[in-house]
């Protein structure tokens, strides 16, 4: 039992190390990951400026643009990762090592969280400075709690997707693309979903995405200066997501692995 735990923790560390090293290997990648989100969020800030919207909307966009970095990381570096690993021939190595697949996924997730958090802090700082976005943080610990819950829920979703993407061929690329911008829209990354202008059906669909609750809670704490009493519903929603998604990811991973073995699709390349 103890030996198994140590093995798995080593696997977590090994995968985390590779992710952090790999993610920071190329300086031009780091620059791109900082500059490109700023280009997009700047366009939305200028659109709000053209419409003479209140200054707090700049903060709204900056936080949305910052948290999107995590969604992009979850989608491309978690969900699609087993597809990339299959294409490069690494997936079979993972399957013959005597460790839990969840340990590998956890290592990937932790590495992704470290890398993306570093970038997110810079995007948040630069966006706030450039657009003079007014931030009011009365309860920093609540902000931290919301951030942690959002990240755990998002990466749990990434773990679930990773098992589904594992058997994909080239449709993995299209599927990840397909999930990117619709989630920006449904999670209200650049506009408040609670507005009466947003149709009820959109709000209902939005509640299926953890990022929606995370963004709502973080914005209320950081922009509107609210506290845990006002955002408890977001905390509960994210906790429910985590409780459901983590065991579901484990189940899906075992199921898809068995299916892949039966159909001989775990080592297929260039599908």
């Amino acid at each position, binding site marked *: 039992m103890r030996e198994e735990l140590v093995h798995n923790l080593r696997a977590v560390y090994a995968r985390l190390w590779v992710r952090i090293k790999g993610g920071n290997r190329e300086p031009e990648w780091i620059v791109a990951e900082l*500059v490109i989100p700023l280009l997009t969020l700047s*366009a939305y800030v*200028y659109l709000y400026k053209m*419409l003479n919207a209140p200054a707090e909307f700049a903060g709204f966009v900056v936080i949305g643009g910052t948290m999107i970095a995590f969604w992009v990381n979850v989608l491309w570096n978690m969900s699609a990762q087993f597809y990339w690993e299959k294409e490069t021939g690494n997936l079979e190595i993972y399957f013959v090592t005597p460790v839990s697949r969840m340990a590998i996924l956890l290592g990937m997730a932790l590495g992704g969280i470290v890398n993306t958090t570093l970038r997110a802090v810079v995007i948040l700082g630069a966006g706030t400075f450039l657009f003079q976005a007014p931030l009011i943080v009365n309860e920093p610990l609540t902000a931290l709690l919301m951030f942690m819950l959002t990240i755990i829920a998002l990466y749990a979703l990434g773990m679930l997707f990773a098992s589904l993407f594992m058997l994909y061929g080239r449709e993995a690329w299209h599927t990840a693309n397909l999930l990117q*911008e619709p989630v920006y829209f449904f999670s209200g990354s*650049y506009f408040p979903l609670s507005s009466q202008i947003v149709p009820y059906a959109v709000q209902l669909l939005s509640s299926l995405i953890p990022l929606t609750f995370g963004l709502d809670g973080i914005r209320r704490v950081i922009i509107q200066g609210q506290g845990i009493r006002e955002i408890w519903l977001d905390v509960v929603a994210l906790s429910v997501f985590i409780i459901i998604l983590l065991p579901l990811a484990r189940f899906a991973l075992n199921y898809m692995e068995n299916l892949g073995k039966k159909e001989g699709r775990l080592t297929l390349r260039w599908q």
Partner: protein
Amino acid sequence: MNTILRTVKQAIWLGWKVETNWADPLIFAIYYLIRPLSGLLIVGFVFLIGSAFGAGFSPEYFAYMFIGNSFFIYVVQIMMTMSMLIHDDRAHYEVLKHIYLSPGSWTWYILGRALNGVMNASISLLLTLGFGVLIFQHALGIQIPINWVGINFPPLLLSLTLGIVCFIAIGFILCGINIMTSKVQFMLTDYVSGILYLFGGVIFVPQVLPSWGQTISNALPITYFLRIIRLAVLNMESSSVEADLFYLFITMIATIILGVVVFKIAEYKARRDGLIDKKEEY
């Protein structure tokens, strides 16, 4: 000439097959609709909510944003197709060396693949415009002041042609950079799209930008491309169409020259340094 035409035709066909053979036509059509439509919905709701809290709703500005964001599909699709092309053919499918050795020039092959991107963008554009009108005008009751039967087609088609040639030339620059480098294909697409989206007057008027941003905007072909398209689709009388067409033509020529130079340098370096069959283990 026959070889060139055959190469372009086969490349368009190959591009179409590569893009479409992963799904049935319905799912493919949904895929080609969902992404650009989501982008339009984001900007649309930002506009509506920003207007409600700000200066009030302006149908003219909504049409400005609606047309700009919809036609921006050409930039995204052409950049994505051409930026991924070298990586996919060289590192992923490992066929670039065979294409280079075949009798037809790889320049015409790349052009054919780019034209496939134009074709896909056109499908996306028509679907996005149709569903965009359906959602905003019919479902949400927003009046978009566009007379679809009164579109002024000559300037629209001229601007589309010049603009697309210009974007393909930018795509050749990206191909050249990708030949000489590795693993930068994703960021190149996002850089070019991001810069053109921010400075090209796509969803907001460039006058909102600081003065240095307006200077960049004035140097970009997309600014004139979208301006002419808006004038044509909204059927507005304007004396600036000729001037905009002239600037678009000038920026197109400059981009073509730059594209040819970068691509030729890349081809020379690729042959000299053995980059055409470079393996990346991506």
